[in-house]
């Protein structure tokens, strides 16, 4: 047969198969893992890299974990070059050596063919606890990574099929829920094993050389698509700025600045002008910052580009050393996968909005809520949980309103919020409310998604909470004359009825039984001039309790009451361009 024809077919067939295999790995991981953050919330990603550690295929998972696998594997290759054998499994979490932040553990399994690594299967997953000063390992008061938990450099956990139990013990001994961690590591190892077995089956039909050829093509193909999309944007320097509330120590906002330089088919994201690194855990090390930059740029460039290393190599990222987005070791970094990763993306969106063909939304809510931990009085066991049910909401976008209850940008579409019922079985608290908050959505022709009111009453004794997050000072931005969304708010109500407002980053606080915690999360930013929103949509929002009558008048120029829209008054308001 014609060699060219062969190639055309082979590439498509191998691409489809690699995607099928990563899907299967993801399925196995989700179904067999144990910690809620992992099995319920799906806070993981898995993929396949080639022998050089270039990411070839991955499941739709957590965006900010998307590229981390390739960094981890490159660290393994650097350290273990020539010593990687069939049956080995590597483990890694150090943010300064190929990881995102300490709770995300990477498990890497090579497929060795004729003495050479043909593929690496990698899964990266967020574990409930990795030690450090506070349970859940989001230590808002850490000033060094050593206070954030256990650092694992790239090391072998399994050698030629033999588990190093000593290593396993050393790791599990340093966390608060050793059994869960061990089970979840097994789930990751199992998922990778499934990947490796399936990849080996590819060898029944194709020689290693042919497979390498096809994989090389897939990477080039993604690079070509990326460069083409870059060429579609006019040359120029585009600047975007976003702010982080604070670092939990100083109270001033922290600036992230990006200049996206487009020239021909070259794109460079230069973060010069970003504030220096800070004392608290909102620093973002190289892997997280680079990944955030890549996925932010790719969102602007288009949905059809495969998110693999080929696409990444077309996008250059410049991260000034010593800045917030590339701190010197041992700066603390645990919050980075939420904030500032989402704000890095947000800065890129604001820079590229005018040239991205209405592909980008207005600002999203930021994560803000406590981790909570203690002894469950129902079974006397230790537990640690997170306020996933307090997610904020998405920004509006040309053509539709933002959706409520969306993960922050760095986790968009990847996290699965737990059901209230599952949460109450896992944790000793009673949920009092989980509903849309009125007047929280950023106004716009396409408004943001409304924020969420989430209240829980703690019944465990004692319950500790640690606040972590952002977005109490800086709201989700509005786009194209749309208005910003609302701020995050968190409040405690004691059994005596006293109300206490919490900051976004706090050290552990002990709560008496019966205390009620309420998070009101951000509504998303609006897109487009609210004055141009269809009156009927404003009426529906009012009818549905998403906005009040006064807000309808003030933000949208629509006069309405329970009886209906007052069209004459509305015409007058809108024609006059009257704004209160």
């Amino acid at each position, binding site marked *: 047969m014609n060699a060219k024809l062969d190639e055309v*077919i082979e590439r498509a067939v191998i691409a489809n198969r690699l995607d099928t295999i990563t899907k299967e790995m993801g399925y*196995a991981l989700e179904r*067999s893992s*144990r910690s809620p953050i992992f099995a319920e919330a799906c806070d993981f990603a898995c993929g396949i890299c080639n022998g050089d550690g270039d990411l070839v295929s991955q499941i739709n998972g957590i965006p900010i974990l998307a590229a981390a696998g390739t960094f981890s594997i490159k660290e393994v290759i650097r350290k273990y070059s020539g010593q990687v054998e069939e049956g080995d499994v590597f483990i890694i979490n150090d943010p300064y050596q190929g990881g995102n932040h300490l709770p995300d553990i990477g498990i890497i399994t090579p497929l060795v063919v004729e003495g050479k690594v043909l593929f690496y299967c990698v899964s990266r997953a967020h574990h409930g606890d990795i030690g450090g000063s506070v349970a859940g390992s989001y230590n808002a008061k850490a000033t060094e990574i050593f206070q954030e938990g256990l650092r694992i450099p790239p090391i072998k956990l399994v050698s030629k099929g033999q588990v190093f139990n000593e290593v396993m013990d050393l790791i599990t001994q340093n966390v608060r829920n050793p059994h869960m961690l061990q089970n979840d590591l097994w789930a990751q190892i199992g998922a990778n094993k499934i990947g490796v077995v399936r990849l080996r089956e590819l060898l029944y039909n194709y020689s290693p050389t042919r497979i390498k050829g096809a994989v090389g093509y897939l990477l080039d193909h993604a690079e*070509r698509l990326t460069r083409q999309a870059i060429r579609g944007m006019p040359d120029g320097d585009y600047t975007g700025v976003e702010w982080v509330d604070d670092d939990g120590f100083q109270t001033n906002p922290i600036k992230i600045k990006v200049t996206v330089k487009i020239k021909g088919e070259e794109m460079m994201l230069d973060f010069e002008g970003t504030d220096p690194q800070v004392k608290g855990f909102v620093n973002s090390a190289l892997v997280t910052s680079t990944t955030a930059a890549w996925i932010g740029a790719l969102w602007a460039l288009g949905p059809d580009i495969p998110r693999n290393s080929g696409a990444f190599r077309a996008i250059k990222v410049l991260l000034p050393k010593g800045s917030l987005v590339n701190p010197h070791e041992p700066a603390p970094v645990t919050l980075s996968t939420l904030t500032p990763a989402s704000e890095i993306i947000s800065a890129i969106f604001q820079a590229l909005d005018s040239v991205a063909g209405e592909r980008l939304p207005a600002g999203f809510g930021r994560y803000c809520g406590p981790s909570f931990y203690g002894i469950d009085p129902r079974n006397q066991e230790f537990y640690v949980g997170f306020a996933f049910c307090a997610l904020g909401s998405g920004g509006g976008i040309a053509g539709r309103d933002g959706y409520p209850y969306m993960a922050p940008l760095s986790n968009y579409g990847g996290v699965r919020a737990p059901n*209230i*019922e599952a949460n109450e079985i896992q944790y000793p608290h009673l949920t009092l409310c989980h509903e849309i908050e009125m007047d929280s959505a950023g106004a716009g022709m396409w408004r943001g998604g409304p924020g969420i009111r989430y209240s829980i009453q703690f019944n465990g004794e004692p319950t500790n909470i640690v606040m972590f997050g952002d977005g109490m000072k800086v709201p989700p931005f509005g786009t194209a004359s749309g208005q910003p969304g609302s701020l995050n708010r968190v409040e405690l109500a004691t059994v005596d009825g006293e109300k206490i407002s919490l900051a976004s980053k706090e050290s552990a606080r002990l709560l008496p039984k019966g205390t009620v915690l309420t998070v009101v999360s951000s509504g998303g930013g609006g897109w487009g001039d609210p004055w141009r929103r269809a009156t009927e949509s404003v009426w529906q929002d009012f009818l549905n309790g998403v906005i009040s009558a006064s807000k309808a008048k003030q933000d949208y120029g629509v006069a309405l009451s329970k009886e209906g829209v007052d069209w004459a008054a509305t015409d007058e308001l809108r024609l006059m361009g009257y704004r209160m």
Partner: protein
Amino acid sequence: MFEIAVDVGGTFADFIVRDRQGATFTAKVSSSHENPLEPIIRGLTELGKGFDLSLEEFLGLTDKFILGTTVGINALLQGQGAKTALITTEGFRDALELRRSRLAEQWDFRVALPPVLVPRHLRIGLRERMDYQGVSIKTADRAQIKEIAEFLRQEGVESVAVCLLFACRNPEHELVFKEHLQAFLPEVFVTLSSELSSQLGEYERTTTTVLNARLSPVLSNYLQDLRSYLRDKGLQVPILIAQNNGGLTDLIQASKRGVHTLFSGPAGGVKGGWALAREQEFSELVVGDMGGTSFDVSLIRQGKMEVTSQAEIAGYPVQIPMLDIHTVGAGGGSIAWLDKGGMLRVGPHSAGANPGPACYGLGGQEPTITDAALIMGLLDGSNFLGGRMPLDIELACEAVEKKVALPLGLSVPEAAYAIYQVALSLMADAVYLMTVKKGYDPRSFVLAAVGGALPLFATALAERVGIQQVVVPELAPVFCAQGLHHARFQVEVLRSLYEVLGEVPGPSWNQVILELQSQANRELSRLGVCADQREYVWSADLKYPDQHHEINVAIVGDATDQEVWQQLDKGFHEAHQRLYGYSQLEKSLILVNLRLLAQEKERSLQSRLGLRAGWGNTKDIQRYEKSSTLSKANEVRLVYLQGAFQEVKIFRWQDLEMGMHLQGPALIIKEFTTILIEENWQAELDQVRNLIIKIGKDGR
């Protein structure tokens, strides 16, 4: 003396009638969205004519009438349905709209989610609360329910969905609400979440409940109309409806539980596969169905249909067991295209029926799988759909040349062949995902190739995934309707237990079994299934204590037997190893649910040997004798296979005789389909006119 099965699908309504002797007669008429009764009447009239009977005479002689319908799913897709309100626990009325944040498409912000089925102002919080163990914390007061009833009346609400927190643990609050509400509003249709599902997870339970509330009235109206029409025309037996799980139910139940019948047609296809597997004594069968827009895969394993508890309907999760059918966008009309980077892709977009593939000549500009097959010589342009749809090869070539061949630097036949191969890889991956993901070796399966397009791919697909044998059933074009004939009454009940799986059953075990059994028996009695015609299939959902997802493990034997009980954990560990790559034998297990599937026993399967089958008269069975001679082809055609045009023998299905051997490469032309037998495969028609295709050269 007649048994009628009707499968009303989106494009066609298919009919199969069996007479007392077991002979089958079929009809196929096009569906109508405007008047869904009309095609049924037309098809039945046509069938009656075949027996020289009027519609009234024909229906009067009918003993059994089985229906598979897409009325519910069509209503959903078109945004129709009853005006529905949703009652939730106070403080939680937004579960339906908040969803769970995870998205199928995360790289494109513009993609819209399926619409929210009940607007917020019709979602009402009830002041009640059940805790996580199903213990009541707060009960609703009657005054509030009265207010709600008043509001619903004012709003003209037709249907009410009720999903309260932890009703899956204790349905009491839902039951009380319904009782009070119906006292105030007797005419309104009420769906309780606890009637549909005992599983945890308020989001999925709410969507399931709301789908039922919205669609049941639509289905109910349709079934009432159908029943009164057919009764007027002489039908004396009840209409039976196929459900998503492949079981039958009656009109009363179907009208209340519309969500259970949304996939009744495709379920018929799986049931058809099941019957085929049974008849042919295949223990493992892959049923592949390729029509105009998609390729659907389902499995028969160890003679059983596979069920999933994690299904989605039109983007909405449903928490009821359904037959596991995996769909990919690769059908005859799927479009081949080059992405911006120059890589060849096929689907998921389809040219549909209008404009359809370029070769239809209806204005379609995009090359499709059908166009590729025509160029390769696999289809005869003058004989497509029995000559009813002439295909224009020039238009096919033009589209393939412009959109694929020129940009890739391939010749037109090469490009067509590449399209065929890429489509094939999508199908192979779908089969692969359905088998290996569940830990099954595809090589132990037989492939049943049904639907108009799959027989063109069947041997190639089998070879790709390592399957050694393919069956193209005689009734492949009406396969789903054919499957409905085999459906039986079926009732599923379950009990949430959530307890540690001990070495011996707990003290209440026998009691639980008795209760489930009597619950199922009551329903079977209502459906008219005699006690000696019942059989019971028990299974348990198990998991490791801290795991979040269960595995369903069959209880093989008497559920009250201790030894059978002790096999349970072994079954779990094995399944876990197979599915997820590891198991932990030292761990204890949690028994989450005990399930009982109670069903009508199989009627003993008559041998179809001696029965007539198909579109008209076929050969007498007496003429069946094993013949070792190869059939003579009456013509040859040039077909592009393996990089070159080569001569391939052409056969017509009606000329085939039982026992004949055909050696590939060969094409068999049948009404509504063409079968490609590749080199290295040989085919034989069996006693009941299924085409059995096996890998290997003649004589081996």
